C-alpha cells in the first residue's frame, strides 16, 4: 500500500513536471511564433535573403535614319575593400601596407589619371567613424575605396585578368557606362550634355535636358533567397521588379545634311571671320528640322572646349533684330489682303524719307518702283510705306500670324518667344520700323518657321526636332502639328511673293550669289545692325534665307553671320554663297531634279540681265533728262539774274515753259 502510494505520488510529480515543462515550451513557442514572430522572421529572412538593385541604361539619341549621335560606352569602375585587405593580413600589419602599396602602384602604372599615393591613402583607411541612430559615434569597417572610375572596357578586362593572376585581394570591378558623343562637335549645342553625380546622370542642356524624363532608366530590384554559397535558390519564390531602359530618341536631323551644313558653316567662318554664325535647314511641309548648326561650338567629349559663348544654343535662345528678312511677311500680307498688287507703284523717295519726325534711309537709292522691286532691291522706304498704308493693326496681325512673339513648339528648352510688343505699346515709329525688322527681336527658329509658312502656302506649322521615341516595341511618334487653314486668303499670294523673292537671286537682286544652276531660288537678304548697350552699332547680322525649288520647296534654309569682319558685311555677300553651297549639296543629296536645263537656265539669266540692262538704260535716260532739266532751270535763273543786272525789261519765262518752247523750236 505504502509502495503504491509512493509510486502514485512520484507519478503525479512526474506528470506535474511534464505539464510544467510542456507549459513552458508552449509559452516559449507562443512567444516565438506569435508574439515575436515578425521580429524573428525578419531576422531569419535577412540572413538568407538578398536584394539586388538593378539599373537600366539611359536612352540614346539617334538621327532620323538611326545613326548614333549620343550613346553609352561601357566602362568599369575599380574599387577596393580596405577592410578585406586588412582582415586577410590581420596578423601582419606590414604585409597589409605592402599589399596596399602594390595595388596602388599597379593601378597607377596601368590606368590613366590614377595617383598611387592617393589610392594608397584610400586603401589604408580601414575604418571610418559614423554616428548611429542613437547619436553615438561608432567606428565601422570601410569596405569601399575608389581606385579608378570610367576605365575603358578593354583596359578593365585586361586589368581584371592581371589582378586575378597577381591574386590581389579586396579589389573588385563594377560595370558602369559613360555618355559618349561619337560625332564630337556635330549638333553639340542641340544635343546638350550631362554630368554625373553619384551614379546619376544630371542633364545640363539641350535634348539631354528637355527629354531627360523619357531617357532616364527606371531602376528595378530582385529579392531572392540564397544558399550558403551565395547563389540564389531558384526553387523558392523570388520577387523582382523589372528594370526599364530609357527611351531612345530619334531626331528629325539627317546626319549627312548636318555634315554638309557644318562643313559649309566652317568654310564661311574661314571666309568672313564672324563673331558667330548659324544655319538651319527645315522641311517646310512638316516643320522637321533637317539640320541645325552653329559656330562657335564645343566638343562634349572634351569639356575644356566649353565656354559660355560656345555652349549657348543660339538657335532657340537668341533673340535678334532680323532686319530686311522681315519684309516678305509684310508684303505678302499686303498682297493677300489686297492693299497692293505686284505692279502697284511705290515711291521710294530716292533713298531718304522722313516719317514721324525721323529719317529712314535705303542702302540703294530707289525711285518710284513696283512692289516687286521693293522686295528685289530690299527697299526699307518702300516696305515702310506699304506698312503705313496697311496700318498698325494690320501689321500686328500680319506679324503675329507668321508666329512672331510665339514659341515654335520645338522640343528644345529654353526657347525664347522673342520680343514683340503688344499693339497698345507701339509708338508712332513702330509701324515703319517693325516691317523692316527693327524694334522687333526674333529667334532664328522663329524666322525659319515663318519662311516655312511662306514656302508651304501659309500653313502654320510647329517645328519638330524629335521624330519619335522608342523602347523596344513601345514607339511613340511625335505628331506633325500644322494648321489646317492657311493664313493666306488669296490662293495666288504664295506665287506672287515667291516670284518677288526669286527676283532677289536674279540679276538686279540683292543676292545673285545665291542662284543655283537649274533651279529657281526664292530668298531674301537681311543686314541688320546689332543693338549693343541699347544703341545701334556698326556691327551687323548678315543673313540670307530662302527656299528651293521655289515652286515646290524641299527645304527652307537660313544662314546668318554675326558680325562678319572680313569682306562685305551685307547678307547677300556674307551668307549668300554659303546658302548656295549648302542648298546645292542638299538638292543633290535629296535627288531633286533640276527644273531647268543648263541652256534654259542660262537663257533665263541672260533675259533677266537684259531686262535689267534695259531698265537701267531707261533709268539712266530719265536721270539724264532730269539732270538736263535741272541744268536748264539753272541756266534760266542765271539768264534772269543777268537781265536784271543789265536793266533789260524782257520778262523771263518759267523754266518749265522754256523746255517746251525749246522743243517747239
Amino acid at each position: 500500500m505504502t509502495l503504491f502510494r509512493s509510486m502514485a505520488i512520484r507519478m503525479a510529480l512526474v506528470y506535474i513536471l511534464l505539464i510544467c515543462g510542456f507549459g513552458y515550451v508552449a509559452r516559449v513557442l507562443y512567444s516565438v511564433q506569435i508574439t515575436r514572430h515578425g521580429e524573428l522572421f525578419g531576422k531569419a529572412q535577412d540572413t538568407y535573403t538578398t536584394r539586388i538593385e538593378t539599373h537600366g541604361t539611359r536612352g540614346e539619341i539617334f538621327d532620323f535614319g538611326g545613326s548614333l549621335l549620343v550613346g553609352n560606352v561601357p566602362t568599369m569602375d575599380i574599387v577596393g575593400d580596405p577592410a578585406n585587405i586588412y582582415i586577410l593580413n590581420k596578423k601582419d600589419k606590414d604585409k597589409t601596407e605592402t599589399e596596399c602599396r602594390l595595388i596602388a602602384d599597379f593601378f597607377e602604372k596601368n590606368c590613366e589619371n590614377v595617383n598611387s599615393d592617393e589610392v594608397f591613402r584610400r586603401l589604408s583607411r580601414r575604418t571610418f567613424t559614423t554616428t548611429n541612430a542613437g547619436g553615438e559615434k561608432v567606428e565601422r569597417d570601410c569596405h569601399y575605396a575608389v581606385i579608378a572610375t570610367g576605365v575603358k572596357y578593354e583596359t578593365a578586362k585586361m586589368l581584371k585578368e592581371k589582378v586575378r593572376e597577381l591574386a590581389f585581394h579586396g579589389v573588385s570591378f563594377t560595370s558602369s557606362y559613360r555618355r559618349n558623343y561619337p560625332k564630337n562637335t556635330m549638333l553639340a549645342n542641340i544635343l546638350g550634355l550631362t554630368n554625373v553625380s553619384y551614379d546619376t546622370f544630371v542633364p545640363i542642356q539641350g535634348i539631354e535636358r528637355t527629354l531627360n524624363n523619357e531617357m532616364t532608366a527606371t531602376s528595378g530590384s530582385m529579392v531572392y533567397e540564397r544558399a550558403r554559397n551565395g547563389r540564389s535558390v531558384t526553387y523558392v519564390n523570388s520577387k523582382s521588379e523589372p528594370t526599364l531602359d530609357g527611351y531612345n530618341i530619334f531626331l528629325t536631323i539627317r546626319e549627312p545634311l548636318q555634315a554638309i551644313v557644318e562643313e559649309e558653316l566652317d568654310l564661311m567662318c574661314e571666309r568672313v571671320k564672324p563673331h558667330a554664325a548659324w544655319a538651319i535647314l527645315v522641311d517646310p511641309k512638316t516643320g522637321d528640322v533637317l539640320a541645325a548648326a552653329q559656330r562657335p561650338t564645343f566638343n562634349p567629349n572634351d569639356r575644356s572646349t566649353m565656354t559660355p559663348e560656345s555652349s549657348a544654343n543660339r538657335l532657340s535662345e537668341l533673340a535678334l533684330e532680323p532686319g530686311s528678312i522681315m519684309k516678305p511677311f509684310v508684303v505678302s500680307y499686303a498682297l493677300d489682303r489686297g492693299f497692293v498688287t505686284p505692279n502697284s507703284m511705290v515711291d521710294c523717295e530716292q533713298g531718304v524719307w522722313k516719317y514721324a519726325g525721323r529719317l529712314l534711309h535705303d542702302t540703294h537709292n530707289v525711285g518710284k518702283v513696283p512692289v516687286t522691286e521693293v522686295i528685289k532691291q530690299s527697299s526699307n522706304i518702300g516696305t515702310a510705306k506699304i506698312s503705313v498704308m496697311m496700318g498698325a493693326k494690320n501689321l500686328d496681325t500680319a506679324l503675329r500670324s507668321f508666329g512672331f512673339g510665339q514659341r515654335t513648339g520645338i522640343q528644345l528648352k529654353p526657347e525664347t518667344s522673342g520680343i514683340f510688343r503688344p499693339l497698345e505699346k507701339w509708338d508712332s515709329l513702330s509701324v515703319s520700323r517693325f516691317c523692316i525688322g527693327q524694334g522687333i527681336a526674333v529667334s532664328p527658329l522663329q524666322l525659319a518657321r515663318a519662311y516655312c509658312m511662306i514656302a508651304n502656302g501659309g500653313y502654320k506649322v510647329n517645328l519638330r526636332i524629335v521624330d519619335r521615341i522608342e523602347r523596344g516595341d513601345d514607339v511613340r511618334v511625335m505628331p506633325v502639328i500644322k494648321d489646317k487653314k492657311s493664313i493666306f486668303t488669296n490662293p495666288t499670294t504664295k506665287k506672287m511673293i515667291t516670284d518677288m523673292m526669286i527676283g532677289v537671286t536674279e540679276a538686279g537682286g540683292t543676292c545673285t550669289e545665291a542662284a543655283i544652276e537649274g533651279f529657281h531660288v526664292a530668298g531674301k537678304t537681311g543686314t541688320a545692325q546689332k543693338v549693343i548697350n541699347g544703341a545701334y552699332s556698326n556691327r551687323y547680322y548678315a543673313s540670307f534665307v530662302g527656299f528651293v525649288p521655289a515652286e515646290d520647296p524641299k527645304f527652307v534654309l537660313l544662314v546668318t553671320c554675326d558680325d562678319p569682319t572680313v569682306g562685305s558685311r551685307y547678307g547677300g555677300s556674307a551668307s549668300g554663297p554659303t546658302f548656295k553651297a549648302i542648298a546645292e549639296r542638299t538638292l543633290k543629296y535629296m535627288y531633286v531634279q533640276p527644273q531647268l536645263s543648263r541652256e534654259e537656265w542660262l537663257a533665263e539669266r541672260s533675259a533677266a540681265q537684259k531686262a535689267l540692262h534695259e531698265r537701267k538704260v531707261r533709268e539712266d535716260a530719265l536721270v539724264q533728262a532730269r539732270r538736263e532739266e535741272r541744268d536748264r532751270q539753272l541756266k534760266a535763273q542765271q539768264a534772269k539774274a543777268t537781265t536784271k543786272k543789265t536793266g533789260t525789261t524782257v520778262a523771263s519765262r518759267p523754266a518749265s515753259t522754256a523746255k517746251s518752247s525749246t522743243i517747239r523750236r
Partner: protein
Amino acid sequence: MNQFTKKINPSEPGIETGHEHNPWVAGLIFKMAMIMSIIFAAFYARVHLNDKTEQLAREKARITEEIREKRTEIQTLIAQRETLRSWDNINSKIRQYNLALRSVNPSQVRYMKRFEGQVAAPSYGSDTRVADTSAGTVQSSGAVQ
C-alpha cells in the same frame, strides 16, 4: 468477408496457424513499403529536380554573363564604328590621302526613269548614308551620273 479477419478453426485441415506466416502483417509491411517508396520517389524526384534546376540556373547565370559581356563588347564596337563614321573622320581621311573627289555639276547628273513618267523618288528620308558632300558622286539606285 475478409479472409484475414474470419475466425479460424484450428481443426480445419490445410490451414496453418502460428506466428511464422501472418498474412495481414505481411500486407501491412507491403503497404508501408509501397507508401514509403512512393514518398521516397517523390522526395528523390523533388531533390533531383531541384538539383537540375540549380544546375540550369548556374548555366543560365553563366550564359547571361556571357551575353552581358558580348553586349558590352558590341556596345563598345558600336561606339567605335560611329566615331569612324563621323564626317570629321571621313573628311580627315580624304585630306590625309589627298583623294581627288570633286563635286559634280548639276548638268552632269541624269535621272533614270524607273517607270513611265516617274523619276527616282527622293529617299533621303530614311537614308543613313554619309553624304557624298565633296565626293559629290550620286551613287544610289535611281540616280546615275
